[in-house]
């Protein structure tokens, strides 16, 4: 689109607009465009922008960690309705396809039919499930999940948690407690994943910051990328917090999960 030895003011604004529209946010957009403008050699605006975005996403380790010779533990967190439970179903199916045995811990004991929803995913993915009565202490489900995974020598324990807005101090403390239980019982979880909805605006960065503080986030699952939202907030999450995207959700079906490809992501973002 933009060719020539220097971009006009109008062309710079158009590049900013692309980023703002993608939920990259004002601050990150100013950083990125600022970095581009300080380069003398911007001939092709879109190509330069692509380079800038890909480099902003960096080269962190995007693999999901496992524990050799023991039970791998993955803790799944995030605000309400982002796709935690569905993502767990997809992960369990992927693990089964890799020949690994899975236990799911239904530690969302609050929301109506949360256990039944996870139970259905356990059926579909061939995983075991540990659940208590609705209203039970989530910590008790976590303890039982760990015990079951060890007793049955399962390869992976995935812990589903209730959605919680990061503004809810008591719920964030509950999550911290769940993290500490896992630390004591099995050692630090191999992954503590924050599920972010691609339609989320700037609040996504606040979510990542708060969840990182309380639970220590090792990676992001960016869901609902099959919609039209670009999920640009993950750029600020990487730049400001150093938290990498590991997985993307591409639909509601059991197979709709893929590893994060920065190049493809940036191509889609720039449309």
């Amino acid at each position, binding site marked *: 689109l933009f060719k020539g030895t220097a971009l006009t003011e109008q062309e710079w604004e158009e590049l900013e*607009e692309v980023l*703002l*529209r*993608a*939920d990259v*946010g*004002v601050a990150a957009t100013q950083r990125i465009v600022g970095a581009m403008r300080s380069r003398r050699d911007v001939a092709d605006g879109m190509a330069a922008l692509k380079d800038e975005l890909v480099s902003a996403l960096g080269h962190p380790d995007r693999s999901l960690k496992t524990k050799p010779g023991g039970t791998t533990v993955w803790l799944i967190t995030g*605000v*309400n*309705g*982002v*796709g935690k439970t569905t993502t767990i179903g997809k992960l369990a199916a992927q693990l089964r396809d890799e020949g690994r045995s899975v236990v799911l811990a239904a530690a969302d004991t*609050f*929301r*109506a*039919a949360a256990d*039944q*929803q996870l*139970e*259905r*995913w356990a059926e579909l993915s061939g995983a075991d499930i540990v659940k208590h009565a609705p209203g039970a202490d989530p910590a008790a489900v976590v303890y039982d999940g760990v015990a079951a995974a060890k007793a049955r020598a399962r390869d992976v324990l995935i812990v589903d948690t209730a959605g919680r*807005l*990061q*503004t*809810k101090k008591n719920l964030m403390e509950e999550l911290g407690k769940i993290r500490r239980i896992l630390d004591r019982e099995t050692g630090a979880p191999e992954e503590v994943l924050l599920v972010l*909805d*691609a*339609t*989320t*605006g*700037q*609040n*996504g960065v*606040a979510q990542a910051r708060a969840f990182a503080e309380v639970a220590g986030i090792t990676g992001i699952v960016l869901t*609902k990328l*099959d*919609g*039209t*939202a*670009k999920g640009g*907030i993950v750029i600020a999450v990487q730049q400001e917090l150093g938290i990498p995207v590991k997985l993307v959700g591409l639909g*509601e079906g059991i197979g709709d999960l893929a590893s994060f490809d920065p190049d493809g992501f940036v191509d889609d973002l720039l449309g």
Partner: protein
Amino acid sequence: TLSERIEGIFGRLRSRGRLSEQQIDEVLREVRLALLEADVHTDVVRAFVGRVRERAMGEEVRKALTPAQTIVKIVNDELVEILGRTTSPLTWSPKPPTVIMLAGLQGSGKTTAAGKLARLLKSKGKRPLLVACDLRRPAAVEQLKLLGDEVDVPVVARTGMTAVDVAATGVEEARRLMRDVVIVDTAGRLHVDEAMMSEAAAIRDRIQPTETLFVADAMTGQDAVNVATAFLERVDYTGIILTKLDGDARGGAALSIAQVSGRPVKFASTGERLDAFEPFHPDRLASRILG
């Protein structure tokens, strides 16, 4: 806050008497940044700032004793204007039952909103009936049934039928059981999923709702315009429910959605519990968006 930033500009520029165009441009820059940081869509921001600029150049600011405060008031007025100026009540059908359909993206809070609406209307002396038309999501029907139990409102659920047929059955049941309002929960769907958008339109055609409420998450970013426009065109809605307002998202998506749809926000969901639900107050969201 934006008003503090605007006051700061006037303080810094030490103006007495008439505002210069430079001062106004500086103020408008702050307004633009505040709205973008609040997730308002870039096009909506552009049009909004244009309108504020026009008013800021006019008599009311020129003659104001405190121009900074006048501009803040203009911004606030323009926001409230878009958001619907006052609370907007439900429309009732002249011939019962009133049918209310809920629609929106995955995870926006529809099923919970159905329970909340049922609880609210029951507390106002209505006889609501809930209808479970999400046949896709695992345990969606169970979820609605549990919410119905919690508020002591009956739930219509059927297997072996399409969502459209369940919806129609729900309305028939309302007549049979003499329930005066039917609340139809539907599956979350993407605006770019042609089959699901056709289903939503088919449900609407079949049950002819008096109110179709678009349920939108307050933390939605720029995509709000794409979604709101597509749902308006394919499903059409008469009002909006804004959810998860108990978070700290600024909620600019609400402005974008109200602007592009011209529909009023009717309800605010402010928590996970079923009693965290109230008529929407535009002035409260206006000050929240401005930060």
